[in-house]
């Protein structure tokens, strides 16, 4: 068995007196599609923020691909192959949809001097990634919008754009923070089908926060349940859904 892609060891994060994440220990295998559920305020997004370096954990370790990444800056974590999307889409409003995608790639024209003096170099690269970006946009049904300013997209399209941007960077793991929030049911299902297709194609690992339980359970192969900063249950969707603790704090009696 391979070493796990991401492990966290006893992560703790306080905000003043509030303990947002209280000793989270996770193991996520390579190539999986893993869900994370839990009531509002249970620390899911904070956990994501710690994993991607937005917050520094008060204690505990994060190991990604056999390397400690806690305490690194977000841009350093990106270069190790871990990206995320946001619950409320953070799109670059005054830029085109295509540019929104292109920024997520490490580009030889991003240095100051190469941008000026190695134009031929990055123009060629730009052409390649543009094709790839158009392919991804086509896959997610956004290709006719590629030159529209991103601010003109609808809410659901913004969600898709976030996913497209995360895919564009070809990471080994993507953290999705509610990829279907505010999206209509048909499109939501569609998004999951597409995520699965992507996973099959390029072997990326997904870690998904989601509130649409039925939908999530259909598609993931493992679920973690968080409550008050702790993982209270984990396992196969069918087991978790019948776990008494989970029903009590989150699912209610359906």
């Amino acid at each position, binding site marked *: 068995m391979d070493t796990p892609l991401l492990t966290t060891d006893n992560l703790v994060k306080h905000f003043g007196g509030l303990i947002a994440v209280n000793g989270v220990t996770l193991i996520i295998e390579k190539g999986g599609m893993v869900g994370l559920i839990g009531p509002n305020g249970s620390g899911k997004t904070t956990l994501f923020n710690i994993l991607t370096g937005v917050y520094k954990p008060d204690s505990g370790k994060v190991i990604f691909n056999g390397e400690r990444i806690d305490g690194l800056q*977000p841009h350093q974590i990106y270069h190790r192959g871990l990206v995320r999307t946001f619950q409320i889409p953070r799109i670059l409003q005054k830029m085109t949809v295509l540019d929104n995608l292109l920024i997520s790639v490490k580009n030889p024209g991003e240095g100051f001097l190469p941008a000026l003096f190695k134009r031929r170099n990055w123009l060629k690269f730009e052409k390649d990634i543009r094709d790839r970006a158009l392919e991804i946009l086509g896959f997610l049904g956004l290709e006719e919008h590629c030159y529209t300013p991103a601010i003109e997209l609808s809410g659901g399209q913004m969600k898709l754009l976030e996913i497209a941007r995360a895919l564009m960077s070809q990471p080994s793991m993507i953290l999705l923070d509610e990829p279907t929030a505010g999206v209509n049911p048909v499109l939501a299902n569609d998004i999951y089908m597409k995520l699965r297709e992507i996973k099959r194609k390029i072997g990326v690992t997904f870690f998904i926060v989601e509130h649409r339980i039925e939908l999530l359970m259909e598609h993931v192969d493992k679920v973690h349940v968080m409550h008050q900063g702790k993982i209270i249950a984990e396992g196969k969707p069918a087991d978790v859904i019948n776990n008494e603790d989970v029903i009590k704090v989150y699912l209610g009696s359906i």
Partner: protein
Amino acid sequence: MADPLMYLLDAVAYAGIFGIVSISLNLEYGYTNLANFGKVAFFMVGAYVTAIMSGLKYPFIVNSLLAILTASVIGVLTSLPALRLKEDFLAITMITLGEVMKLIVKNEEWLTGGVWGISGIPPAVVIPGITFRERLIVQIVLIYTVLTLCYLLCELIVKSPYGRVLKTIREDELIASTYGKNVFKYKVQVFALGSAISGLAGSLFAQYIGTVSPYMFEPTVTFSIWMMVILGGPANNLGAILGAFMVEGFQRSSRLIKDYLNLPLDPVNLQVMLTAILVITVVFYRPQGLLREKIKPDRKPLCKMVKSKFIEVENWIRRS
């Protein structure tokens, strides 16, 4: 007011110099959203370095290169602590920097001539035996060459992937860092570049005026540069130059008008009031500035666009 043409040429030269500064602020504010309210400090550093060096009989090219270097070094040194601040605090810090630099210049008499400043700075291009007006035209050619070069440089930068990263930082810093951009590094670089360009403009200013004194570099200069960018259109380099022309023209014409008006209030105050009204009107009714930012790319390159227009005209002639 002897010769209206001279006044006009002088205004054109001024607009060119401030156009350069305004482009540099556009790079900082319009593209990267860095509220640099200390522009005048870097402009002043450029002017003073040129003045001091020309006193030591160095040629203009050396002076201006040194001005660029000094301004960018000061830019980097101030940006290292200042850029860790949020936008509004950065603005306050930079205003203070402008004032502090002015005070330093005012008090270090051994170097800068104190309140008297330095005079007798020779122009960059000396052609013997030409009239004052011709000399002015030579100056204008020089200034506009530099302006064009700065414009081209900034256009190249903002149209490259580097510029795209700058825009990403402007839109959302968290996204920029999530997708692997070292935001702090980019900010420092832009700050250094912006300061360097304003230092160059200061250098041109010093050799154009021929004298520098601390009173030329009041904080109000910063605000008129900001007006140029805001009126002309942030994130549009042509807009920034247009803004420089507008603000310069507006300030000059209101200065002229007040000589002919008999008003119950101090005409200087009237000028300030009119400026405020202008800014408020533009920000209120056209917040994106006169020339708005181009978000969609030109599908066709310029030569093809010209060519297609040409063919259109040709067809039109043939038909008629």
